[in-house]
């Protein structure tokens, strides 16, 4: 018994080392092999060095044990694999030229663009974020309000639910011509499109969420002396919050796509706009750079939304650790 657990521990430690070594190896290879194209490799090396130190530190700290060490142990193989991927990709591109340019630039070229154009990227991120925040906030607000109305009142349900069912399946992007006519400029067009794409999933799940609240909560509240409006505020709305967040999660993805596409059709800034511009110049390294930044940005937004959700839903079983 003791023996086998020891073996397990050892194999676990090997995996933990595996999370670090590929990054160190990639760094060494990158320094040793000269590139076949002209590229500033410093940003990529810096990235590899940072990752080596980061995973190395986590590996060291994980010797102490605890839940963080376990999480690291579980993730180690994956982190290592990403390191291997970096190494292979770098060798196949900048170091040997196996991957055809300009369509498949290497990680060093992408890092070079990200670093060199950091000011432009930061601006575009802010531009995209501003658009997303405006559109998404408007969309989720309208979505939850209309969802609550539809879920709460039979009359609203009668008139609005069929409309919503039909309108909900239309991709917001299909409405571009219409929205362009109605809205005065491209920014408000994009905001409207993002808002529309967030609206329906939120409204739909909110309405369904209110319907699925246990009827006895309403009965208990009524017996305790609550009137209709009080029940709306204290039972229907808080009871619908989990559903609202389910809708928000669905809406986030849809709203991101709408955001990028609407930026591609005539915005004057933003990551979608940048991708379009870079495509025009056949500058694929910039395209990939923008995609990487986009992924990081969207993951941050999702994490923030998740944080708000966990805050609001501490009353739910199993959500709090």
């Amino acid at each position, binding site marked *: 018994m003791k023996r086998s657990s020891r073996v397990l521990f050892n194999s676990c430690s090997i995996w933990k080392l595996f999370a670090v070594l590929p990054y160190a190896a990639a760094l060494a290879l990158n320094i040793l092999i000269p590139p076949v194209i002209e590229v500033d490799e410093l940003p990529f090396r810096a990235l590899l060095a940072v990752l080596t130190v980061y995973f190395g530190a986590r590996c060291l700290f994980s010797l102490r044990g605890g839940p963080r060490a376990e999480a690291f142990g579980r993730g180690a193989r994956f982190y290592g694999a990403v390191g291997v991927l970096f190494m292979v990709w770098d060798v196949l591109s900048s170091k040997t030229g196996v991957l055809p340019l300009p369509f498949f630039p290497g990680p060093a070229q992408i890092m070079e663009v990200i670093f060199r154009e950091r000011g432009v990227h930061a601006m575009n991120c802010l531009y995209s974020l501003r658009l997303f925040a405006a559109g998404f906030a408007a969309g989720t607000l309208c979505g939850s309000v209309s969802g609550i109305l539809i879920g709460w009142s039979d009359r609203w349900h009668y008139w609005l639910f069929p409309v919503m069912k039909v309108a909900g399946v239309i991709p917001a992007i299909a409405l571009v011509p219409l929205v362009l006519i109605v809205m005065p400029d491209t920014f408000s067009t994009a905001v409207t499109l993002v808002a529309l794409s967030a609206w329906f999933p939120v409204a739909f799940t909110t309405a369904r969420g209110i319907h699925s609240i*246990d009827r*006895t*909560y309403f*009965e*208990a*509240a*009524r*017996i*305790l*002396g*609550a*009137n209709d409006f*009080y029940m709306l505020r*204290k*039972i229907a709305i*808080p*009871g619908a*919050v989990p559903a609202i967040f389910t809708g928000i999660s669905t809406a986030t993805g849809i709203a991101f796509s709408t955001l990028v596409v609407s930026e591609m059709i005539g915005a004057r800034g933003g990551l979608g706009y940048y991708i379009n511009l870079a495509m025009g110049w056949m500058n694929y390294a910039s395209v990939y750079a923008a995609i990487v930044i986009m992924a990081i940005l969207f993951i941050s937004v999702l994490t923030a939304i998740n944080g708000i959700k966990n805050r609001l839903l*501490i*009353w*739910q*079983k199993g959500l709090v650790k």
Partner: protein
Amino acid sequence: MDRGKTETASPADALPVVVEVKNVTREFRDGRGNGVAALDNVSLSVRQGEFVSLIGPSGCGKTSLLRLIAGLDAPQAGEILADGEPVTGTSYERGYVFQQANLFPWETVEENIAFGLKARGVYTEHRADVAEYLVMAGLKGFERAYPHQISGGMAQRAALVRSLINRPRVLLLDEPMGALDSFTRMDLQEKLLELWQSFGTTMILVTHDIDEAVYLSGRVVIMTPRPGRISEIIGIGSPFPRNRGSAVFVELRNRVLKKFHLAGAEPPAEYAI
């Protein structure tokens, strides 16, 4: 706490009737559209301060009757009076405790207990009551806990005081202890007696448990199913505190059990030894 108070039938007769059920019939449609008489011509009157238990096999209409008294449902025939007035809807004067504690999961224990006061707009005057009722329920220290963080027994105690904080004239209890283990159940029975004796609230308790009915109530109402009817009402005269092991208690319990048999109803499985 007046635990020595005796409960005899005769002086209570002078007290006013709080709940009067008059020839009530309630039918439901089953899946095939046939009528099922959940209650058939049921009459019952309950006087102020009484503790009445409704007992009977599953499906005999106990919950249906309680919901009618609460005003959550309306009868097809007959009439229900509360303090002499016909019941047309719910009222905070007729509190209701559900089988599942049914606390609002998004509110803390404290907020749940204060719900009735806030809903009625009297929270500012009675703010101090909340702490007092928390203590009464033995939930001091759990004010900020959410319902999923407390035990089933604690949740039922919270649900009990959540109803009592409105000072209802009648408290309707639908198997509030059904989902609890026997120790927690006995604990809650004591709590219920204690609250009944200190508030004098009229109690109508639905239960599956003959012991519980005999231990707590002044009258035990035995119901039979298909159609739901009252077959027998047994007065329990013995004084409080009652002793579950005493000869008198066992005798009473057996009397109820026998009536149960005579009523043609299968007693609950735990008595079929």
